[in-house]
């Protein structure tokens, strides 16, 4: 599956899986990450707050968009990043469309399974905005902070 990886230096596409996957259901049946890199896939109905100790043992987390109108994984991603301080890769799977790519990046996703989507379209969409009104899980300073900085500079 072609995956767009969003980094500070830009976005790149690769099709190499980064390690093995364990689903939350498998974890609950006793599967454990051992040698190598492991990602945990979590259904979008799970309360992320309750999974802190589990995700800490993984290099990555995979969150799902069964349909692009189902936005539960945005809340999961922000909780992972902002509350659990998860530093590994957070990957979006499922209905991952370029028109939502920037919301995903802002919510804390840094990898998008784009399938046969046009990478150039995704990269354009990620750069469509330079101003954001609210703080989120990305590094962008919201307008209210930039306004304050501008006032201080003046």
């Amino acid at each position, binding site marked *: 599956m072609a995956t767009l990886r969003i980094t500070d230096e830009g976005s790149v596409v690769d099709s190499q899986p980064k390690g093995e996957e364990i689903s939350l259901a498998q974890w609950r049946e006793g599967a454990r990450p051992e040698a190598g890199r492991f990602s945990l896939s979590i259904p979008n109905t799970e*309360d992320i*707050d309750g999974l802190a100790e589990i995700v800490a043992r993984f290099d990555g987390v995979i969150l799902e968009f069964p349909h*692009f*109108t*189902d*936005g*539960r994984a*945005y*809340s999961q991603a*922000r909780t992972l990043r*902002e*509350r659990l301080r998860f530093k590994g890769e957070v990957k979006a799977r499922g209905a991952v469309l370029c*028109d*939502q790519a*920037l*919301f*995903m990046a*802002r*919510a804390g996703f840094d990898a998008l399974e784009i399938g046969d989507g046009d990478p150039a379209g995704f990269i354009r*969409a990620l750069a*469509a*905005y*330079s*101003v*954001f*009104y*609210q*703080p*989120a899980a990305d590094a962008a300073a919201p*307008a*209210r*902070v*930039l*306004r*304050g900085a501008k*006032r201080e500079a003046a």
Partner: protein
Amino acid sequence: MYRYDEFDETLVRERVAEFRGQVARRLSGELSEEAFKPLRLMNGLYLQLHAYMLRVAIPYGTLSSRQMRRLAHIASVYDKGYGHFTTRQNIQYNWPALIDVPDILDELADVEMHAIQTSGNCIRNITSDPFAGAIAGEIDDPRVWSELIRQWSSLHPEFSFLPRKFKIAVTASAEDRAAIKVHDIGLRIRKGADGERGFEVMVGGGLGRTPYIAETIREFLPERHLLSYLEAVMRIYNRLGRRDNKYKARVKILVAEDAAEFRRMVEDEWARSDKDSLDAPLDEIRRIRRHFTPPKFDRLAAESEAFDAARAARPEFDRWVKTNVLPHRQRGYAIVLISLKPIGKPPGDISARQMDAVADLAERYSFDEIRATHEQNLCLPHVRKDDLFAVWRTLDEAELATPNIGLVSDIIACPGLDYCDLANARSIPIAERIAERFADPEQAADIGELKVKISGCINACGHHHVGHIGILGVDKKGEEFYQIMLGGSGGADASLGVITGRGFSSSEIVDAVERLIRIYKANRVDGERFLDAYRRLGPETFKEALYGDAAHH
């Protein structure tokens, strides 16, 4: 009024560019209508029975004359010369061509306007009291907080794909002119025990198929924590709101199932949130507040001789003053309501020429300010009493001086089957015929305050649940029928109307309304409104008037 800075301007321009690209992909065939639909719905563009409909946001109902002139220009150039003000203080154009929509959005961006989040399952345009900053008794200016919420909710990365649409209303008075208790979140600005300012937070109100009055989940939220608390409510809703059935997806369903549990979850989420990061810094709130400093009012006498003389000389002016002019908090000023309910015309419609006339009046007489009300009328918030007669004459020439604010012909109606593909029945013709039946202003004034609200289907866009008389269009074996509900109110004393019984055909419904009014007039005690009489007398008296003689037919 709030004015854009470079950040606001850039964001809106970037939104237009993004949407222009999406429209181009649709026009080239790269996007199917199915794929395009959710994208256009993020930007207020609906496909209706006959054409596209574009809904333009008017944040908390405030407009400058420059903005109103631009709305007129868009109506003339891109539509059929008119627009339609909605129950959410927005304006809709019913006939734009898809290819023109990006240009319309550019024209709007020129005057600091947009169509962001006027549709879709996201946080919609924030609504508020149309008399903000003009009416006596406000604890604070609700526009300050409405603007803060507008910015926070715009293109929110977490809350743009909610289970269902989400509406927030803000008020700062004891009297509720924003129907906050029938919103997903209603915020009432209040003082706490120690005089500190904050919000009563109400969640889970709504109309539609299953109407609910909102529950207060927090009696007092210190104002500095508004955004972190809203984030907590939204996160719980985004996580747990139903997604398997669109008719059970609004937050009201979650709250109605177990309000105490909902409150517990929100408080728990909020307790763990990073408030320092989520809440707006004080200097940002101060920055927004500076945009709403009161206009430079003249120091005037409380009474105006010219005004009193004109009232005495011109009975039709006097009648209009009685219904359409309200006391202002500043001595010598008044609040003017402009009725968009001329007898026999679609409620909320306004021509481009009329929009220009209102813009001219606002510029000359009302510190350049216009408001849209949720009752589909307009307002000039700051008019000198000395100028009222001149304002009335101009309004009268523009056919905008219908003296019926709050009266039986000041009807809220959804577009109905004339425009909407969800509707079961027509709404506008019923509104027109009721208004015609009570067209005599003396008679209407005698009936007094009476809120008639009409929806063409159970989605309740015409707010029939909160009408003193609510009318719901239903389809009965292919024929349009109308059910009557009584006793609803969208005010501070919010209540939901109760259905009376069998529906009435299109030819019977106006007579039925007249029978209700007759029984009210026969039973009212001095000065009692229709709603008060209904609440005192109970439904049986009114049902008897509606159905008592059914055996004779």
